[in-house]
């Protein structure tokens, strides 16, 4: 049974058909890629999976449970972590607080614990803090723990977002253009990090990417989305050589 299965998912924004008959299957530990030109509906697919929008039709089964209609935070607590294309970080919170925040659904001390600062509250906060430090070290941003995020360089902000997504202890990680706006050096580091997450934590990863080099190197199977419809799926080589893809997305001339 696949970890995440999507069947015939369709979504309309008013009269605009953003996604049409979208199918996907990801087993645990697999890496899947989603490419497509701007406005193809890639981020909408992510938003539909994570519950921000409710699909007009179709079903999404995650970890053996139908998740259409659940609230985003419920879906996330089931183990579906994501990052955002345009870095949704919290302006006035420190890096450490970001990662601790993602442990929200695991907190058991309750409101009374928070109000009176019970020993249990302190213990749990301490545990979460240690976990957060571990994740930040793993992402190589441990030194920034006490800084507020706007002070960080862009590449580091991306990694903080990644650490935050990992703190919810996901079974699958949805990465929305993890290398957008990065220079070549940061790009290589980010690819290294994604590979490490995949190998060390054994996570399934589903990523949207614009840079062909990244998807080609990381993903086993790639889907190409154009105007909300999957026009091709296959291994990186197959996709690279698929004339429809070249036509719609890579352009008619040289392939990167």
């Amino acid at each position, binding site marked *: 049974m696949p970890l995440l299965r999507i069947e015939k998912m369709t979504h309309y924004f008013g009269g605009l058909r953003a996604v049409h008959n979208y199918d996907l299957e990801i087993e645990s530990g697999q890496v899947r890629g989603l490419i497509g030109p701007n406005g193809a509906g890639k981020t909408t697919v992510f938003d539909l999976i994570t519950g*921000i929008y409710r699909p007009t039709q179709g079903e999404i089964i995650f970890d053996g449970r139908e998740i259409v209609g659940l609230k985003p*935070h419920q879906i*996330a607590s089931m183990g579906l972590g994501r990052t955002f294309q345009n870095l*949704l970080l919290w*302006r006035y919170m420190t890096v450490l607080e970001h990662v601790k925040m993602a442990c*929200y*659904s695991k907190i058991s001390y309750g409101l009374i*614990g928070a109000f009176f*600062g019970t020993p249990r*509250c302190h213990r749990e906060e301490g545990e979460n803090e240690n976990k957060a430090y571990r994740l930040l070290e793993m992402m190589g941003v441990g030194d920034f723990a006490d800084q507020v995020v706007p002070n960080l360089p862009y590449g580091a902000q991306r990694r903080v977002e990644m650490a935050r997504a990992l703190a919810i202890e996901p079974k699958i990680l949805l990465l929305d253009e993890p290398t957008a706006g990065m220079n070549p050096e940061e790009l290589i580091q980010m690819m290294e990090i994604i590979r490490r997450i995949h190998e060390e934590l054994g996570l399934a990863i589903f990523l949207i990417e614009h840079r062909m080099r990244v998807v080609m190197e990381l993903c086993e199977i790639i889907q190409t989305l154009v105007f909300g419809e999957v026009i091709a799926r296959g291994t990186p080589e197959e996709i690279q050589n698929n004339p429809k893809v070249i036509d719609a997305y890579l352009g008619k001339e040289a392939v990167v």
Partner: protein
Amino acid sequence: MEVITRNSSISMSLLRSKALESLSRIPLIGWLFGALIAVALEHILGISLALALGMPKIPVLFGFVIMLKKLVLIPSAMLYMLLIYILPIGAVARLSAPLANRLAAKLLRFPLWFSVAIHLGLLYAALHMWSGISDYRILMLKLTLIAIILTLSLNVINGYMGEFSCSHPGFMALGAYTASVFTVVLFVDDRLFGPALLPPILGLFIFPIALIVGGMVASLGALAVAIPSFRTRGDYLAIVSLAFMFIVKSAIENLEIVGGPRGLSSQPDWANLPTVFLWTIACIWIINNFVNSTLGKALNAVRDNEMAADAMTVNTRRTKIVAFLFAAFWAGVAGGLFAHVLRYVNPGTFGIQKLAEVLAMVYFGGLNSVYGSIVGAVGFNLMSEALRPLQIFKWILIPFLLILVMIFRPTGLIAFREFNVKNLLKPKLKPEEEV
């Protein structure tokens, strides 16, 4: 010649920085010692010094009121301030600094609550003696402490959560009336509610319950605001909460059973200074705990980016509603205390002017900050009392100051600062001594 003036200006600035440095080495407990000595001095010498300086009585509010009333007395008021407050506090704090530092270091070895209790005890002693001089000071101090509760609780909504709520006077009214009815029905022979049901000796135990019940009724009212307005983001809360405030006010005005627009009086005199002080401390402690826990930080996450908060497993709707009810609870408690301090409430108190006052205190002090709320409430109350002799011009000066704050510090004087008790109490040593 130029060299000399430059030298002297350098030595002046050196002197100043040295003085500042020596002041920064004084721990909080040292300042509290100083304050205690100063208020003791005022008790002993205050009245004779005031008379000798040509003032009719001890200046009740650090001389501000006297200065504005009679310009001739400005030098005497300033001299009084210097002799009774500034010099003794400075001297005692400075001289006791080594001792105080050692004491503070020793206290830190005990559990934190012990050290906190000692500091609070000293603070209370100083406030008690200071306010012992006149009834006006006691009343003002109580109202300021209540203002701290109000400001802090509104800061949870408007600062930490980043919504804009206007219903705080409404919650306060609910708390004030509930607590008043509770105590008046049970303990007072009243013409509205008949003879007392319980002996007044139980009052000490019942009064906290009355306040908590008042807070809970305010929370219930908050639920009525929260359910419709947290479905969406934006200005809805501001509008719904403003409406709520007016609904509460006119509902009470039309309830003859609690006296209608004439108000409700003869509350028992239980809100003495220690009670108000303890409730204020409890409020600061609980709210500070809450906003520093992950459950409370979730408010910041919701404010800064709700979509990200949702994706990181934060139950945003529950977070918002809980925080709103929590803030309303404290507003209700503040209302209950307020009613028992004045021993009279009428619905007219809880109108748009109260709202403007609370909002001003929050935005003046600083958003998202416990320090800021304390500074805002104390500063605004002091200012508003001190400028009272200016009469109508007070309402030109205070808004003007607020505008200046908004221009130069848009988030308030002390915004986004964490309230760290340990840092506050720790000994202030030179860097090399710390090693």
